[in-house]
């Protein structure tokens, strides 16, 4: 039996693979430039593949992967029936509302929000009883308020440099974000003898 990992492409995957290698797993075929899709370790007990982050919960929920490593932002945006077993505390950042320092958010009036995270933005403003028009943007979200597309943005903020360079500031913090290890609900039970040690070693690495 093989334990399959679905990793979100990008920073998180890099750190997760480093963690796996630190745990003693050897992936001979893996290099950052490799075009292979699935990598198996030399003992043949662990396999991982790289996918776009919103797909990680889907793969794990459906059981195509036993374990997934993905940011909390994705789990909030695309809720899935999975066990969220470990907070890996890597890829830490904050989900924030950002805009212009001298222009307070127009609460009580119609507010236009540009974001990659429509569900998170909607839930946040709904909880404040604020009606919002959400504009889903797939990249360079900071552009939206600069050219007058939206009043503010909802996005993850790590260092705040991109915001600063574009004259934007964090106006409100929504929540903390970090990478989570998620596990398929059936795999945790039916492959327990294999998954438990992996979780435990990850836990001790933290």
């Amino acid at each position, binding site marked *: 039996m093989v334990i399959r990992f679905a990793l979100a492409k990008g920073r998180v995957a890099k750190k997760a693979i480093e963690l796996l290698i630190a745990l003693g797993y050897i992936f001979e075929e893996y290099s950052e430039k490799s075009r292979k899709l699935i990598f198996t370790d030399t003992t043949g007990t662990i396999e991982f593949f790289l996918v776009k982050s919103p797909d990680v919960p*889907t793969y794990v*929920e*459906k*059981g*195509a992967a036993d374990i997934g490593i993905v940011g909390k932002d994705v789990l909030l945006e695309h809720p899935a029936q*999975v*066990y*969220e*077993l*470990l*907070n890996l505390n890597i890829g830490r950042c904050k989900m924030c509302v950002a805009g212009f320092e001298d222009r307070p958010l127009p609460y009580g009036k119609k507010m236009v929000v540009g974001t990659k995270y429509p569900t998170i933005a909607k839930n946040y403003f709904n909880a404040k009883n604020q009606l919002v028009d959400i504009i889903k943007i797939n990249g360079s979200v900071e552009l939206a308020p600069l050219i007058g597309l939206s009043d503010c943005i909802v996005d993850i903020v790590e260092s705040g440099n991109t915001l600063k360079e574009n004259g934007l500031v964090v106006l409100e913090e929504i929540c903390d974000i970090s990478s989570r290890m998620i*596990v*398929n*609900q*059936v*795999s*945790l*039970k*039916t*492959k*327990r003898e294999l998954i438990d040690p992996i979780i435990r070693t990850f836990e001790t690495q933290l």
Partner: protein
Amino acid sequence: MLLNSTIDGFENIQHQDYYSLEKIINKLTTLYRLYGYHQISTPTFETYDLYVGEDSIPSDDLFKLVNHQGKVLVLKPDATLPVTRMAAMNHPNADEVIKFAYQTNIYRNFSSPEMIKKEITQIGIEYFGNDSPECDGEVIGLAILSLLENGVKDVHIDLGHVGFINYLFEELALSSFEREMLFQYIENKNIDDIACFLKPLDLSAEAKAIIIKLPSLYGEPKAVLKEMKTLCLNENMAGVVEKIAEIYCHLEVMGLASYVSFDLGFTNQMNYYTDINFKGYINNWGEPVISGGRYNNLSEKFGIPRPACGFAIDLMKVIDYMEQENLLPMDTQKNHVIFYGYDDKSAAYDLANNLRAKGEITEVFMIKSDWGYHVISIRENPLYKNAEIYFLSQGKLCIVENDQYISLEAITFESEVN
């Protein structure tokens, strides 16, 4: 031309799958019948009122429509509630034991993700009027047997009890918001967020330690029972431990205990279970295929207080698994296809009727072009994979074998040979 006429979440069932589905349903209804369950059926529509106060099914997940009287109806989103109502209406004596089995489609208007199935083919049982561990054991046992009988060997049942957490939260006098948040975290086994959430709460360190252990209360039954015993804060919690230990003993007697493990992290956040609940899994199959439990307060809604326990199987998920593992019962019966000439019509129909009377699948077609063309068109049609082709022309019968026409005295078939 009608294009784009498929609806997300709804599927056709192809003939091979339908054949398997029917065989499986037959096998299971026979199994339930042998245990004394009576097959029943309830309407496809229910009144919206039935589900309004039911937290277990969010109103947004219901397919609603309005009838000519202005009454709001829903497409049946669940089988248990209507079956419970039926038992309450037709069997007003609360002490009666009633065992019902059903096979039905249920409908959920899930908003996301798009590909999720909204029409779910279920088969299940409901056992009313018995609150004993033997009843729970029988229900869980039948859930396991339902899969075993169909050749699915890697069955795994996770048994929990919502009371353990509920009695604990009652003892700690948690607010409904706190309960809801904790339920959610426990369901997701999200220990880290539980710890963060508990930190500012005004609870003893001991209580917090117990709550943090709840998500890890799963696995080998005897080990879990031992761990649970150390966490009991009151008699009710101890009662839960005793009860599931008893059910486990019962399953040992039935010889099915090896399929069962425990998970006390199930909550009744999204269902009406009051007591034990369980999920059935198949190894290497990512989603649960069985869901069940005890719902002792549901019948009271219909004026008859009556304990009950049951489960439902998601049949199409089981079929998907069986297909992958080549476990599906296949339709291998041969068809006899008879082509006849214009003058041989009545002889062909007589011949066909004789064959059908013996249980043979028989079809007749008139010869309309050359024989070779007919042979090819049948051979190319996947629906006629098992077909035997005959020609009846000018009173002479012949069979097509390896592209040769061999004359026959009469059509013979396996059941006759044996």
